[in-house]
């Protein structure tokens, strides 16, 4: 094992953990808002993949990573609009439509990618990095913690902003009310469907951004089906965080580490088959669910469509 614990291995593990954590952090934060408002957003995997596809395409055509991120948000929101109309406005089953959206985006992006690029996978140039003089030069942790793309720090700020929003603002209370007692919110003059639509669109934006990060920064290219369950891991994070953004952050770092162990072990030249290594993050999720699954607390009205006056 001593051969594994070199500076290069640790550095790539830490870097990998952060790079892998950001997409699932964004997805988890997005899903959390949907779930707070009472919508179980299974379509998040599709929103993320659409964000990755549109985000990559925009960045590839314009050579601008920032426009790419905007494109990712747009792709996620467009997918979320379908979900918002069908599941919130029309009250259709959230799980069936969520699976439908995920399958549809998987097929659509693979199809479009095939007709645009055939079997080639063009790469984006390496992203520019934020350089903080002094800190970035530290060994091991320097390049991993302080040399990331600006979006990483924006994601961290989002954790704080969301925590404040949920605890201290009226909007946060309205969101919880829509998820716990939609009828009570309705009687109090709140707009249940309106706030749920906002929550679903926010989920789409965050998941799309996460997808764009995955494609543009994480991989530097788009591959069909590339999200590979990252959105579903985001759902698990949101379920276990019991409504707290900080817990989503902690969870995403743990799963990010499990995900990056995959790449780090490959870098270190370990001869364990990739299939086994790829099982790590999912095994970690199951382990956490077995140990703490009972503690997951979900809003009372989660998954149920709200119809005024319905029994």
């Amino acid at each position, binding site marked *: 094992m001593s051969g594994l614990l070199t500076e290069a291995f640790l550095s790539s593990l830490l870097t990998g953990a952060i790079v892998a954590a950001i997409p699932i952090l964004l997805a988890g934060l997005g899903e959390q808002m949907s779930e707070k408002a009472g919508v*179980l957003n*299974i379509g998040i995997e599709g929103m993320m993949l659409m964000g990755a596809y549109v985000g990559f395409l925009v960045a590839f055509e314009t050579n601008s990573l920032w426009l790419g991120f905007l494109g990712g948000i747009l792709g996620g929101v467009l997918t979320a609009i*379908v979900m918002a109309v*069908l599941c919130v406005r*029309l*009250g*259709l*089953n959230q*799980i*069936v*439509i969520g*699976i*439908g*959206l995920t*399958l*549809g*985006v*998987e*097929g*659509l992006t*693979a*199809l*479009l990618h*095939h*007709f645009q690029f055939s079997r080639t996978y063009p790469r984006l140039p390496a992203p520019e990095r934020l350089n903080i003089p002094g800190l970035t030069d530290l060994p091991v942790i320097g390049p991993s913690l302080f040399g990331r793309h600006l979006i990483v720090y924006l994601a961290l700020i989002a954790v704080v902003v969301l925590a404040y929003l949920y605890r201290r603002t009226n909007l946060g209370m309205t969101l919880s009310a829509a998820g716990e007692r939609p009828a009570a919110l309705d009687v109090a003059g709140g707009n249940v469907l309106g706030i749920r639509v906002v929550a679903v669109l926010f989920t789409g934006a965050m998941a799309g951004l996460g997808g764009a990060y995955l494609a543009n920064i994480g991989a530097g290219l788009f591959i*069909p089906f590339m999200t590979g*369950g990252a959105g*579903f891991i985001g*759902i*698990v994070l949101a*379920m276990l965080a019991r409504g707290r953004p900080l817990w989503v952050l902690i969870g995403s770092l743990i799963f990010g580490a499990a995900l990056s162990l995959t790449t780090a072990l490959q870098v270190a030249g370990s001869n364990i*088959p990739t*299939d*086994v290594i*790829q*099982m790590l993050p*999912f*095994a970690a*999720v*199951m382990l956490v*669910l*077995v140990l703490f*699954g*009972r503690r*997951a607390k*979900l809003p009372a009205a989660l*998954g*149920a*469509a709200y119809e005024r006056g319905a029994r």
Partner: protein
Amino acid sequence: MTIQDDMNPVSADPETNVDGIARTVTERSALQRVLTLTVGPILAAFLLSALILMLVGVNPLTYYGYILERSLFSGLGLQQTATRMAPLLFLCASLIIAFRAGIWNLGTDGQFLLGAVISAASAPLLVGVLPGWAVLLAGFVLAALVGAVWSLIPALLKAYQGVNEIITTLMMSFLGVLLASTLVKLVFRDPETTVPQTRTLPVEDRLPRLFDTSISSGLIWGLIAVLAVHLMMTRTAFGLRLRMVGANPLAATHAGLSVPLLTLATFGLSAGFAGLAGASEILGVAGNVRANWNPAYGLMVIPLVFLARFNGVGAIVLVFFYSALMIGSESAARRLGVPQDFTLVLVASLLICLGLGEYIDHHKRKKER
């Protein structure tokens, strides 16, 4: 069954859905319901997908025409379609049990693949040791057991801890798919081939073919499985108990049923049938499992089961058309250069249009009251 109210088996049967007032409604309105609930969504889905085909520059008429010609109007295609129905039918049986009992088993892909791998690993070794029928029986039984075992963690978590099974079954599915591939590469690998794959069951030892065709008799077993499950869920006391748990677990507890045990039974049966689906593909058609093979039938069958409103007979009809679609699109992928991923788009459009049909029907009936 409407897609709006959660899985509610009481309204799952069209027959029981018809109350006194609805019985007097004329024939024409029954026809209208069929149009809004079944034919309409299917047509709308094909139209919606046609738009996407046009977007990528493929003539939808050529594409759909090719699929029809290839899968239904050619003898060989029709036989392939019938053969492909077997694993899909077993998966329908699996999902009908789970959905009628209110359990979202979304992990059928993992259960399917592990079932396939264990049957491919065991059957070739048993040839010569056991008589032919016993080899096949052993393959099927092992596959069902392995599938059921793979659902054990989600089942226990759901039954005793109340952990949402959607996530746990999905995660176990990802794990199962990767584990299946690992097992093929490391444990059950055929030492005589260069590509990683299991030993191959000789053609003469596979499930017999029907009459003079190339149709595998797995089709018959799949049909029996769906019909048996349909009868079990609608006509037996055990099926009624499962449906009660699905309709209202709290009420079922008060009625004296052991909800945790019935939940475990649902998972075991549903995952067992998913395992059988894997075995039917291997023992009937493929003969071996190659590493990284994953047809991912599981999630794709979900819309069919919903479209059939959890009715076994309806599911059989839909599986036939769906199977034709798959055979046709596999061929179109080679000939017309449209990747098979298009089937995913079609399935997704079907799910969405189906939901819209339910919505329209729901509101029409509300007005009638």
